[in-house]
């Protein structure tokens, strides 16, 4: 491999961002980690392990922290989840491992699994030790992976451990997908995402950046590789479809988050309105607060009970000072060159469950920046188009249909996982998909018996 600059060294965090986006959950030190690890009951067939999409053997890695076997602990985590460090920070553990902890039923706080996992992973990185895995003996087989997000990275790790060549293609200049560009900095700093992927590259993964793969390109990759993994995620954020959307001062949540994480954006104007009430909307709203906005509103067509954000994310946003406006719909954007305000209409729920505009309820919410976070479109259509040389891959509502256990699509040579198959879930779900697909591809290629 030619000399290249390690991923984390290709970026430098903006000092404003570093200062304003400190750790949401501060790391453990050894004095705190060991007693917490000892609090773990070491459940049999542990509910936390079952709840984790990647099935990390949680009691086992925690036991190893308690005994001081920190490298063993990190290996246990990475063996199940090659992005164990990112997941320890980005996972909504409240609804996953920690949510499943039996301690809840003992009127006790759950074991702080995420912080323990981060402790083990941080210790591994700080020790300077290499990734505790080696690539398998080369089989001569190769797989092209489209997208370098969590699903493809996890898939690539399984392939490399089995001696299968993994070529990753991504449109961005850096790997990681949403891990690198899309997760709130106080959860997962950009450099931390890259640090983990840098380690993964020790398995001999080949990266091809700033490479967009279209139908023709895909047909070529299909011809030159033994299998193709589609980890293409989702497409652009939806538009409102109202007048004034082209004005300066209208952006979307992903651009806002990627902007401040990469240091391109270090401040926002006074009044910010975020449209949508999902977890990404919450991240964008909190980022706006931390980037200097005085007043941040989140707008949602429906009520609090229908929002897709996790309850703890909602609480966090309120704690940061974000205000919520329920049952309102944007009808237009006002401004003269730049945004000045958002025209809104109040909505009322009808008996049949639909929502209808309330009469004479229009009002204007003044705003300097409007951030759209109303869901992402799919962009998998090119896979089933008539021009695709490999036959149609079955889609459903724009999502790639796969066999859940192996990730295989309707075209046997194509596998898929992550947001492009599930419509948008968590990093850990993408990792689990990628892992299953990696094992599935190896099995389909007949190398499942390689010892990993």
């Amino acid at each position, binding site marked *: 491999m030619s000399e290249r600059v390690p991923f984390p060294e290709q970026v430098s965090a903006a000092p404003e961002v570093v200062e304003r986006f400190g750790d949401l959950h501060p790391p453990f030190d050894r004095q705190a980690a*060991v*007693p917490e690890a*000892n609090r773990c*009951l*070491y*459940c*049999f*067939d542990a*509910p936390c*392990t*079952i*709840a*984790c*999409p990647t*099935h990390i053997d949680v009691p086992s890695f925690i036991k190893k922290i*308690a005994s001081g076997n920190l490298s063993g602990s990190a290996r246990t985590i990475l063996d199940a989840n090659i992005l164990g460090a990112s997941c320890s920070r980005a*996972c*909504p553990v409240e*609804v*996953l491992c920690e*949510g*499943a*902890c*039996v*301690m*809840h*039923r*003992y009127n006790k706080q759950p074991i702080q699994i995420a912080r323990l996992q981060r402790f083990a992973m941080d210790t591994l990185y700080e020790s300077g030790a290499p990734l505790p895995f080696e690539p398998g003996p080369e089989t001569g087989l190769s797989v092209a992976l489209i997208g370098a997000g969590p699903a493809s990275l996890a898939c690539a790790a399984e392939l490399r451990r089995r001696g299968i060549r993994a070529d990753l293609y991504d449109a961005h200049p850096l790997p990681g997908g949403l891990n690198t560009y899309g997760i709130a900095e106080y959860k997962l700093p950009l450099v931390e995402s890259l640090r983990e992927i840098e380690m993964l590259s020790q398995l001999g993964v080949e990266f091809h950046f700033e490479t967009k793969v279209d139908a023709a390109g895909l047909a070529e990759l299909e011809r030159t590789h033994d299998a193709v993994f589609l980890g293409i995620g989702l497409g652009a954020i939806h538009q409102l479809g109202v007048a004034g959307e082209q004005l300066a001062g209208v952006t979307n949540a992903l651009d806002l988050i990627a902007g401040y994480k990469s240091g391109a954006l270090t401040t926002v104007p006074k009044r910010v309105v975020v449209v949508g009430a*999902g977890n990404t909307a919450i991240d964008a709203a909190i980022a706006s607060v931390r980037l200097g906005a005085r007043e941040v509103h989140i707008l949602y067509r429906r009520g609090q009970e*229908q*929002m*897709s*954000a*996790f*309850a703890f994310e909602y609480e966090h946003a309120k704690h940061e000072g974000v205000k919520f406006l329920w049952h309102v719909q944007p009808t237009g954007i006002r401004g003269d060159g730049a945004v000045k305000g958002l025209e809104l209409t109040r909505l009322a729920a009808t008996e049949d469950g639909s929502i209808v505009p309330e009469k004479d309820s229009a009002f204007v919410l003044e705003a300097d920046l409007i951030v759209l976070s109303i869901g992402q479109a799919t962009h998998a259509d090119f896979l089933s188009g008539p021009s695709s040389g490999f036959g149609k891959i079955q889609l459903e509502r724009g999502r790639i249909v796969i066999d*859940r*256990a192996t990730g295989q699509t309707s075209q046997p040579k194509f596998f898929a996982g992550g947001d492009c198959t*599930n*419509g948008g*879930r*968590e990093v*850990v*779900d993408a990792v*689990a998909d990628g892992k*299953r697909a990696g094992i599935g591809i190896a099995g389909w290629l007949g190398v499942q018996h390689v010892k990993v």
Partner: protein
Amino acid sequence: MSKSKPTLASTFCGIECLNPFWLASAPPTNCGEQIMRAFDAGWGGAVWKTIGEPITNVSSRYSSIDWEGRRMMGFNNIELISDRPIEVNLQEIAEVKRRYPKHVVIASLMVESKRESWHDIVQRAEDAGADGLELNFGCPHGMSERGMGSAVGQVPEYCEQITGWVKEKARTPVIVKLTPNISDIRVPARAAKRGGADALSAINTINSITGIDLDTFQPSPNVDGKSSHGGYCGPAVKPIALNMVQQIQADTASMLPLSGIGGIGSWRDAAEFILLGCSTVQVCTAAMHYGYRIVEDMQDGLLNWMAEKGFATIEDFRGLSLPNVREWKQLNLNYQIVARIHEDLCIGCQLCYTACWDGAHQCIHLDRTSPAPDTTLTPGMVEAESARRISTTPIPKLDAGTSGRTNAITPLERIPRVDEHHCVGCNLCSLVCPVENCITMERIDKDLPFESWEERVAKGLITSGTGEVMSTNT
């Protein structure tokens, strides 16, 4: 029973005690200033750190065992007897007794095994005002190499002879402190009694090596890279001490008033030693760990417990548990219990399940939700099966019904089931269960009369040839 306020005041081999809590002969009783502070804190007595020809110590001298984040579960030392001149110690004893006439000061003594040496030190200690003498026949390190300490305690003849020499001269009660580094503690105890001892104290520290540094390969405590066997004490040794106390108190040839030592750190520990026949207790490690102030709760807790139980004095409950310790062959073979899991308390950790499978008798199963109980699944199969399940992060909007999932109730599939017909009543599950009272052991014996191994042999139900029962206590 008496409703009046209980008292901790008692008498031990003729010595009046304000309370039964004494500091053992050790660093906390090294000098008069310390002992006076201890008396101010509430200790009823102190055994002065062993007086003899001053020695030179090494550094370091202590090491310990931590357990799951708790410090000093077991403690070890290679410190020797007092490093201060005999004369200074004796002057300070006199000063302490002058200021604290009602508190007990016992002089712990250790000199070379010569009659004149012992006569001399006994006389000087008593002249200084000591209320009693404790003969240190137990120190396992350093002094034993010089023919003192446990070198005496391990040889009954020496034990008896030196006790005799001391008794020739002593006007105050003589307490012999026994070493546990011996196969049967009753042997030196009987020897001390034959020698005329007025009382015993037990146990001294147990020979130990606490651990090895995995980076340097040096044992601890580290003295310039080397170490030596030391004396083990602290919470870890209490069960061993209780057993030895019981052995002494259950043996008529060794039974004497006894001061209990070994892992005592709270009133509960003290109550247990007294229930096995001790009149006073001696504390060291706990005081070294937390300071003299621990005695406040020891007094307060014991008094409250005594009031609850209706005991007016220490004598009211001293030795009450002795009749309950028997030889194995005298236990009731017809007593049968089984484990019962209380579903309303079970949190589903399944530690009982895996403990029963791997560590006991395979009587707990996970088949509450199977259509027909499938007892053929091994724990390994159960675990492998669940790892194959596909889990996803529940998103409220995408996964209707999962957002409101509650952790309040344990799913039935996670609550293990005890096969009561096969349960042997070993008790392991209830010991590993992290929730108090979740697994209880229920009596199920079917009105069968008491019957022991001994009785079965006597009735001819079992041939005595196979009836030799192993017991470490016999």
